[in-house]
């Protein structure tokens, strides 16, 4: 059974690009355009990994991560931060990796494979 990745980003282009990238590499994907709707999707879909943008129109990435880390069942879900903001590696210190847009697709896939296989 293929592993599932939740993509959280307000940019439709980024969501499509990441969706295609992960699908081409054998992963199943689900999408959320904002941190506020993402929590419901995490609870229903139980993804194996999450890619997270930081700055979004409603709920920003760090606040979504806080909610995630307060849920005993979901708090160990690995998160990769993908953002255009500077100094973003300090925003969510417990993320398994932080990539700055524009990011290297091969590097991202390598991190995903190392994390969830």
């Amino acid at each position, binding site marked *: 059974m293929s592993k599932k990745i939740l993509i959280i980003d307000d940019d439709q282009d980024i969501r499509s690009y990441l969706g295609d990238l992960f699908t081409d590499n054998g992963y199943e994907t689900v999408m959320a355009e904002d941190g506020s709707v993402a929590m419901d999707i995490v609870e229903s879909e139980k993804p194996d990994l999450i890619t997270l943008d930081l700055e979004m129109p409603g709920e920003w990435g760090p606040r979504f991560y806080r909610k995630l880390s307060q849920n005993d069942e979901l708090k160990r879900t690995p998160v990769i931060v993908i953002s255009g903001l500077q100094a*973003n590696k300090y925003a969510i210190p417990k993320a398994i990796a932080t990539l700055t847009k524009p990011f290297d697709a091969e590097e991202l896939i390598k991190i995903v494979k190392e994390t969830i296989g």
Partner: protein
Amino acid sequence: MFKKILLATTGSPASFGAARVAFDMAKRYGSEVTIFHVVGVPTKAFSHVVNDVRTGEEVEIDDEYLSWVEEELKTTFAKQFAGADNAKIVLKTGVPSREVLREARKEDSDLIIMAASSGENVTFHKGYPGSTLQKVAKAARCPVLSVHRESASYWGGFSNILFGTDFSKQAESAFKFALSTARELDCDLTIFHALDISGKVLDQNEIEENLLVARKRTRETYVPLMGDFKNYDIEVWEGTPYVELVKLAREKSIDLICLAHHTSELDPERARIGSTVEQVILRANCPVVSVSKPDKV
């Protein structure tokens, strides 16, 4: 509560974090934001020739120069201006700290937001808040919110507040501000006291006895003031206060730290914000608000 925000900015990258927080608050809480920039310091009293705050060069202030500066600021913050209906730019000449305070008084600002330093001096930038923040925080009637690290501005709104107390008189105002913010924005509130054991070797029983006393004092001091507000935790442990505050904020994903501006130096010309607040401002991964007076809490 945050009806009128004064964003004091040099327009330099060091102030981008402060600007991000100010504009986000404007959109999120419907605040009115004044982007306040001091163009330069007059070379003589009331002179039209000023030393530009950014370049240090002497420039003559006229309408053309002011409109150029305004355009520069609009370009710098173009993305933020795009969604902000309630933002205006105000330019002044003079000594920055004095003009910021004057504008805050004139506008009756509820909150001043500024960077901790202009970032021009790297060594200073790492170790100390700049003199403008020092002077503004000391004299402002309203709370002063500061953002130093870029990553400290990546929260988007407040929902988890940390109030650090040393049980000082000033801490009463800081607590009132933290509590009213928590009530109004439906936040969780953590009340924290760090038992300062830096540079001391104490018996563990003595440390834990002091912790019990501090916890009791925290409860007795703050719980009666909270009425029906129940979203609070009380944390007390030993360590170096600024280190423990920053660690707790990071561990609990705190998005606003609220501290009393406190100093033992009574001479207002020499008094600094207080070393704990200074260090927390420089190191925290979220905005830090310092409160020194009871007027706007």
